[in-house]
């Protein structure tokens, strides 16, 4: 089915809540695919939500594993402690990032995740969005001897520092990122033994274009009162699909359908709670180990998260509604990685520049 066609008419009951239902289903299917990949020893790439380079990796049919999502899921399912203890017994300090330790514990336990088995990495791609990513990938490199690729996306240098496409600084940064993408492609060819087909990359970019356009429309729809979705609760499901299905037809279709659902809810004036008294903007992640209680804490008072910074930086920057120029795929990918990557990083390190606009 093409997303440009109107989806088949549905009963109202089916349309409302479809995004969450389908999101959860897609999530399960994705973990089932990873489980099968673990069984069959299929080549897999470990990547991070901020700057996953999914467009390139999927051109080589690599399964994508998101360790941050794995750790988050362990927290939501309240099994992290067991894994954290394993990692600490192994030698990791209590001061080390909990995501890293939960993941290490899971690897020490034979990569048995509560959602399914996780395949070994053939290649891991760390961006510099969080420096801990780079320390994290070194752990897998030692465990499995896998190829490590640090995809370096230079960020904002100071307060108020910005560079526009076309400026000398931006072009310099773009050339650096683009040349790394070319090296990443060489690495993927070496790891998978498959040739690189530029049409595959172009297809993936086109899928992201559709996904990003609809996602940014979905975010805007939440400016309505009442807000059609909770940016923390529902947003987490949407973000999972954004990451895992980035660059796929399935992901693009999902987002088109989500937009349809949200437009429908806005038309009917449907919100997420009976009476929306306060509209909140979330900065930073939620407390996932007490996720439900965390959400109830606000909902009980009539407060709804209508936006969340997390949707921007952990959503791979797609909130900007980016559009790749598929005719110059690598150059355009490099540009957008810079724009969205910077947005993610600056969001954390120079948040004062951005919070005022949101």
């Amino acid at each position, binding site marked *: 089915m093409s997303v440009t066609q109107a989806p088949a008419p549905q009963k109202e009951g089916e349309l409302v809540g479809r995004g969450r239902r389908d999101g959860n289903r897609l999530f399960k299917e994705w973990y089932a695919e990873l489980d099968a990949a673990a069984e069959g020893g299929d080549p897999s790439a470990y990547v991070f939500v901020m700057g996953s380079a999914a467009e390139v990796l999927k051109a080589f049919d690599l399964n994508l594993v998101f360790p941050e999502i794995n750790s988050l899921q362990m927290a939501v399912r309240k099994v992290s402690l067991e894994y954290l203890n394993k990692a600490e017994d*192994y*030698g*990791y*300090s209590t*001061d*080390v*990032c909990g995501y*890293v330790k939960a993941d290490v514990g899971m690897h020490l336990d034979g990569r048995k995740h509560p959602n399914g088995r996780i395949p070994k990495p053939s290649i891991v791609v760390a961006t*510099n969005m*969080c*420096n*801990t990513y*780079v*320390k*994290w*990938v*070194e*752990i897998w490199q*030692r465990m499995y001897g896998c190829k*490590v*690729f*640090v*995809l*370096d996306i*230079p*960020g*904002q*240098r*100071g*307060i108020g*520092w910005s560079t526009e496409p076309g400026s000398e*600084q931006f072009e*310099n940064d773009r*050339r*650096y990122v683009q*040349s*790394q993408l070319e*090296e990443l492609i060489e690495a993927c060819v070496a790891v998978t033994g498959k040739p690189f087909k530029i049409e595959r990359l172009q297809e993936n970019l086109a899928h992201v274009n559709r996904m990003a356009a609809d996602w940014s429309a979905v975010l805007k729809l939440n400016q309505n009162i009442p807000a059609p979705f909770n940016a923390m609760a529902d947003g987490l499901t949407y973000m999972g699909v954004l990451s895992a299905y980035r660059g796929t037809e399935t992901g693009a279709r999902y987002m088109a359908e989500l937009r349809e659902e949200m437009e429908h809810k806005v038309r009917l004036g449907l919100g997420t709670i009976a009476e929306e008294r306060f509209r909140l903007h979330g900065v930073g992640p939620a407390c996932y180990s007490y996720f439900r209680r965390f959400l109830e804490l606000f909902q009980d008072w009539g407060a709804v998260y209508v936006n969340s910074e997390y949707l921007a930086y952990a959503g791979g920057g797609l909130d900007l509604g980016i559009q790749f120029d598929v005719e110059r795929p690598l150059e355009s990918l490099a540009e957008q990685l810079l724009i969205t990557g910077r947005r993610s990083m600056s969001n*954390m*390190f*120079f*948040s*004062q520049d951005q919070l005022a606009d949101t």
Partner: protein
Amino acid sequence: MAVQVRSAFEAILSPCSELSEDVTYPSVKRWRESHPGGHAIGHFQVYFPEELIHAAGMLPVTLMGAGSRLEAKQADSHIGSFICSICRTSLELGFSGRVGFLDAFYTTPICDVARNLAGIWGRNFKGMTAEILYLPQNANAKQAVPYLRDEYARVLAELERISGRPIEEADLRRSIGVYNENRRLLRELYRYKRETPWLLSTTEAYVLAKAGTVMPREDHNEILRSALAEIPNREGRRQDRVRVVFEGGFCEQPPLDMLQLIEEACYIVDDDLLIGMRWITDDVPETGDPLYALAESYFERSTYSCVQHDDRKPKEEMLLRRVEASGAQAVILAAAKMCEPGLDEQVAYQKTLEAKRIPFLLLDFEEKMTAFERMRMEVETFVESILFD
């Protein structure tokens, strides 16, 4: 005669020891007084190409926290408590006005906390350039060197703006020469530590080196030259001590008392303390494009640390090389509390040393710690276990 020789060395050492503990930066203040209209540029750990600042006729100053000598009162209300101490006390240096003499402050993307510091600094200390010097994180990218070269050019332009004068290639070459000399002298200092640790302790070498972080390198070279000339004349008898490498002082610095207590039981024959000063391990070429030469040296003529990923320098192998080259029998694996890169690496080092059956002792520290009794016991027990194994 022996007494006189010893005091000559101590006459050199003593002001360095004082400087090392003084968070009022007297040497920087003196420099500013004697250079009206001059500028001082601060940078955070680990590595910064100070040659750029030096070539502009400005004074580079390394900010590396304040140990136990400053309480992070105001800084604590600006950053989380789960942040390493060096970042908190460095920020406190700003809030308390102690480094008000700076015209700019640079951090590098060594870790999330350090790069974040530029944003916090800029927000709170307005009117001062607060920026990240972007050291490329993909050390294995073909474009890493040219990209860094251009980043150096960007910073240089900002330094020119601050100093109000152009910086010529000849200025840069001269500065590279001064710093090459400095690195040669530091290597010589470390040779003494390695070959005759009874003539030069790590604490002494450390304060001698650290003096260079708050004064012009020409002056520091002078100090190092005089100290090196005196070392062979020092009295000291070789003792039967365990030779250890101290690993884990690349960013937050351990308290001097901690180094001293280790030295009471061992010879520290090599370490990664103030590794940024020794990051470049060979002379930077003094010909050709100086910015390119500096950028290339950062990647190609350099040592290792846990804040750089480079496939050509697997850190545990680099540590083994350090142990072997220094003839150490054991390793003190230290890490600063709340330091993600250091603590992550500590585990990898530990596993490698276990596999190689090299004895090691894990020590967590904080620059501001003041109680060492437990640590002393741990070190003594460790040393005894090696001596009587």
